[in-house]
């Protein structure tokens, strides 16, 4: 018997078959590859339809066999419910994950950390400027040790954060 070289599609399908559970693969792997070869050789079968069938297989029989392998076949029933339920569960996870992430992002966007979410420096720390009611990023501030009168004739120092801009060189604020 002469062996002809495998086509690219056959090699790709061979890799997909290798993803099935070992007992199933050992029993039916060769037959699956042979059936796939027959489909490729069928002139009435469009290639797109063959691959669509393979995708359907992956979403159904692939998970079904792994589930059966894990549970010893206890979830295999007469009805196609496990495969259907599994497909619904996988779809639900695929749809729900970005939705849930979006919902959390939306909630966080509405809360007080909004300035953090909008800045180009996501790891900035912000201080609330109560006089102007706005959040000021720490990286635009400088800490200064400023003298302060604690009691008549007694002075000390206090650390003050001052916003530094071109028009506002760092200096200690004057006492009120």
């Amino acid at each position, binding site marked *: 018997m002469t062996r002809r070289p495998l086509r690219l599609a056959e090699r790709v399908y061979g890799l997909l078959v290798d993803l099935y559970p070992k007992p199933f693969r050992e029993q*039916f792997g060769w*037959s699956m590859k042979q059936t796939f070869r*027959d*489909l490729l050789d069928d002139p009435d079968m469009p290639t797109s339809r063959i691959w669509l*069938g393979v995708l*359907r297989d992956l979403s159904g029989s692939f998970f079904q066999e792994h589930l059966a392998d894990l549970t010893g*076949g*206890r979830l295999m029933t*007469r*009805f196609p419910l496990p495969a259907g339920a599994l497909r619904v569960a996988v779809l639900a996870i695929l749809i729900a994950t970005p939705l849930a992430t979006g919902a959390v992002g939306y909630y966080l966007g509405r809360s007080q950390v909004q300035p953090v979410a909008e800045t180009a420096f996501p790891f900035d720390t912000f201080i609330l400027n109560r006089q102007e009611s706005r959040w000021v990023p720490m990286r635009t501030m400088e800490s200064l040790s400023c003298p302060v009168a604690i009691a008549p004739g007694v002075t000390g120092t206090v650390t003050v954060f001052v916003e530094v801009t071109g028009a506002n060189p760092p200096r200690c604020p004057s006492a009120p």
Partner: protein
Amino acid sequence: MSRNAQFAKPGLALTAAVFYVLLSLSIKERHGYEILKYVEANSEGRVRLGPGTLYTTLKRMLDAGLISELIDRPDPENDDARRRYYKLSPRGRAELGAELGRMQHALKLAGKRRVQASS
């Protein structure tokens, strides 16, 4: 429920794939690709099996004793040495008969009730 017990409850309907596989093997022994083509042609394209779904279905049916693998090869003219052939077991034939009976009963009932299928 074990795999062998999955078809144990009489009176429950078979899945479309299992029904058409039983029907295809009721006529003669076939290999996987022949079954796949028969199912698609005779269900008028409503049931399409990929290789994975086909062999998952065949495995369940083998485990349930509805079909068996042919040990003696079929007629040399039809034999392809590389392939595995499957045949209907007596239990599979009984299941197919029960399913056809259920369908006939449903049709009779629909006829009595003057139910018409929308096309």
